[in-house]
């Protein structure tokens, strides 16, 4: 094991194919170089830790983040918004997640996500139609023209953000997603300032919208969060702000990458793309396999220990920083047969792509529907699509990993 395998994983030159590095990492299930984070890369250990009450998601429990290349410097003091439930432990986490779930899913809103199917279909159809009308068949950037605009439109619809404001969200979402990522070349002060400004602007914008919805509720999630009344009470304006910001960023950056990674994988496996064209129902299992094979969240870098614990024979002290490398666990040969093979018919497929335990992906049912629909419609409508660059250019981000552009050519677009 090289001393700096973590640096290699974060190094942009390995972004297109980090999997050999993960394989090397798994040889040491709990990797620790003496001063940095404890990095866990094997399936069963990650799964257990995701369900372990001695593991915290609250950065305030870190003893020190000095040597953690993914630590967020002083963010909690700096930020305008209180932490969202992604970064909280029970009981606050449970209370906020319960309140957020009330207008989103069962038991209180069992039909919200299911009833969005028609909307999702219309948005997908509209985007592909637009490519057919104005696009250049010789060069289509699937990220810019499809997988980027789709999820942000969906999340804005769900929350109740007016369509004309979507463009501004792209900018904020990008900056905030970049802040989760180490950039050795950037001036940390400058980066912090940009992140802070984006948070401020997003917060200001949402505050205005929240006041608007408080006065005239329109049945969308934001209205319900503001006016909701449950045994947990009603969220404060600050809590609604944090939650809305979380849903916007998390529901957007990740799904973009799921769809883009999906299309890239299909273009690398043309026989599967052909099958999907005639069997759209294959998309259900195919998306599960994608979440295993190319997970949009490669690792969870913000966990810490609330006690001294032992994992795979390694003692981890209280207050240590943990990285859980989901993408490495997803290819653990002790758990999955032939793990480096992309197999859309795979039956044994309990991947870690959406996490597990109390923080498992809140938007999972929506993300699944988006990806299933997007990929089956692209497969059906694009005639003879082919990659113009392999590997395509990736985003800087090692955690929320995916192509920045996906240039393809097609012979035409079916109606």
């Amino acid at each position, binding site marked *: 094991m090289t001393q700096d395998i973590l640096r290699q994983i974060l190094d942009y030159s390995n972004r297109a194919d980090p999997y050999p590095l993960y394989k090397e990492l798994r040889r040491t299930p709990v990797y620790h170089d003496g001063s940095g984070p404890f990095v866990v890369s094997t399936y069963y250990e990650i*799964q257990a830790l995701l369900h372990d009450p001695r593991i915290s998601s609250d950065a305030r429990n870190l003893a020190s983040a000095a040597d953690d290349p993914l630590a967020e410097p002083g963010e909690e003091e700096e930020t305008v918004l209180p932490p969202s439930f992604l970064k909280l432990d029970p009981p606050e986490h449970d209370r906020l997640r319960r309140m957020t779930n009330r207008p989103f*899913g*069962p038991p209180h809103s*069992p039909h919200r996500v299911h009833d969005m199917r028609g909307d999702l279909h219309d948005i997908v159809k509209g985007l592909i139609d637009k490519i057919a009308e104005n696009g250049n068949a010789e060069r289509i950037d699937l990220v810019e023209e499809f997988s980027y605009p789709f999820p942000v439109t969906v999340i804005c619809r769900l929350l109740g953000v007016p369509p004309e404001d979507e463009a501004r969200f792209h900018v904020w979402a990008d900056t905030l997603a970049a802040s989760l990522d180490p950039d050795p070349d950037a001036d940390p002060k400058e980066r912090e300032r940009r992140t802070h400004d984006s948070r401020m602007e997003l917060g200001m914008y949402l505050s205005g919208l929240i006041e608007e919805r408080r006065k005239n509720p329109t049945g969308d999630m934001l209205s319900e969060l503001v006016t909701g009344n449950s045994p947990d009470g009603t969220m404060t304006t600050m809590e609604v702000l944090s939650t809305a910001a979380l849903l916007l960023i998390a529901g957007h950056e990740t799904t973009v990458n799921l769809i883009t990674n999906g299309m890239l994988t299909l273009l690398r496996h043309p026989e599967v793309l052909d099958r999907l064209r005639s069997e759209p129902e294959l998309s259900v299992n195919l998306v599960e396999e994608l979440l295993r094979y190319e997970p949009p969240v490669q690792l969870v870098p913000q966990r810490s220990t609330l006690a001294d614990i032992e994992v795979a024979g390694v003692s981890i002290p209280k207050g240590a920083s943990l990285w859980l490398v989901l993408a490495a666990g997803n290819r653990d040969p002790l758990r999955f047969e032939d793990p480096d093979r992309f197999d859309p018919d795979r*039956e044994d497929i*309990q991947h870690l792509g959406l996490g597990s335990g109390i923080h498992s992906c809140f938007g999972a*049912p929506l993300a699944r*529907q988006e990806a299933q629909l997007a990929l089956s419609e692209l497969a059906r409508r694009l005639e003879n699509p082919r990659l113009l660059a392999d590997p395509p250019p990736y985003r800087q981000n090692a955690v929320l990993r995916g192509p920045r552009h996906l240039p393809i050519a097609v012979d035409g677009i079916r109606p």
Partner: protein
Amino acid sequence: MRLVVDLNRCQGYAQCAFLAPEVFAMHGDEALLYDPNPVADGEADGELRGNVTRAVAACPVRAILLELADGHAGDGPGGAS
């Protein structure tokens, strides 16, 4: 189409109730109620079938066992967990 949910495996993730709300319902935050025979044999309800398929695939602990009319069991419990 017959459904069995292994309630010992079920952890209350509620993913099935999101994707096929006409078949699976949460009673309170943890108890799951479901229709064990949502589509009568020989009946072709494509949309409902699709929803159930999505629900089965989305279960993080693979607790839903789907038995199709031809006796073929789809998607049983996965490997050790």
